[in-house]
């Protein structure tokens, strides 16, 4: 008698629980509350209306580096057993800001900075906004300035584009 009673109560509780779970899953609405920074927002352009042109570099997210993207700054200080990472990073940031300001509105895409031994090579894609002699002057000016500042040979290699190369519209 007691055993059967216990079994029946167990059965009813199990049934009630099953019912409750079923009720929650089927047509259930619940509030999902989370902290604000669950999503990653670094170096990403969010999908929008579809009218914003975006280059290949901007369209791919940072987890695609070494998969579908390359590196914008190539040096050896981030390898195992090598040092000087912080110095190289600060130099890179300075160079990017300097060139963004010097060639204001003329840059088509991000700079690529390469270091071969002591030599610093800055590769840039430019739009044809200024007459060529101005480009030659600015390139020579930045090379001289940076080589005196960083005490190493600096070379700029620029390629001209008609307009920004669009990969997709987001």
């Amino acid at each position: 008698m007691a055993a059967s009673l216990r079994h029946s109560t167990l059965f009813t509780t199990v049934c009630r629980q099953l019912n409750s779970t079923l009720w929650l899953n089927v047509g259930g609405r619940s509030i999902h509350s989370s902290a604000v920074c669950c999503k990653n927002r670094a170096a990403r352009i969010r999908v929008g209306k579809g009218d914003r042109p975006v280059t290949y570099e901007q369209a791919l997210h940072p987890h695609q580096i070494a998969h579908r993207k390359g590196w914008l700054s190539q040096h050896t200080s981030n390898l195992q057993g090598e040092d000087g990472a912080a110095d190289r990073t600060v130099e890179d940031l300075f160079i990017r800001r300097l060139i963004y300001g010097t060639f204001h509105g003329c840059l088509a895409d991000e700079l690529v900075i390469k270091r071969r031994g002591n030599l610093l090579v800055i590769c840039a894609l430019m739009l044809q906004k200024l007459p060529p002699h101005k480009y030659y002057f600015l390139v020579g000016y930045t090379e001289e300035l940076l080589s005196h500042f960083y005490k190493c040979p600096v070379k700029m290699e620029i390629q001209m584009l008609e307009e920004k190369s669009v990969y997709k519209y987001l």
Partner: protein
Amino acid sequence: MTASMRIASVRLLSKTRHYFSSEVAVQPGARTVHHQPASTRNVCLIPVAFLHKGRAYGTQSSSVTVTEEPDLLFQKLSVLVKSHDKAVLDSYEFFATLAAKELGLTLAKVFEPPKNIERLTLLKSVHIFKKHRVQYEMRTHYRCIEISRITGSTSRVYLEYIQRNLPEGVAMEVTKTAIEKVPDHIQMPLWSVQSQEKQGSQ
């Protein structure tokens, strides 16, 4: 323009050959360092890889010196290259092994040590939100080329060629194992010398 392009490529060829043998006749006028005027820099028709822009790379042609002291001998020359990009290492390995074969060096081993991944877990937010973190990793791929039984001068030539063409973002570590002649004072073991003296005295 085409004439200057051809001359430029010939100059590059003679420059690399000069390192390997001094008996090859150097083309007349090829000893001068390249001096491309700035105005023609961006109007080149041939790809940049074939043009040798002389300013930062320009070196004086070194003559081969003959000295009386004997050359160093290396049992093993181990070149370890590291990079973040495996494709770059593949192509560099092809280049280095080709150069070694052209020079007639014996490639003992060309292998790929396992990669090393350094991971960091940092807080995603500036102030609070301890539960939300961001993970970064830095991968270092390796490639090792071992050359056995090489002389000092050959190793200097080979290493200089290899290092001048090292791509950006690639680091190199060179380990040399030298062979030396056994010093005279330990040629014979001490106990045999003593036994010879005893026999002599007896």
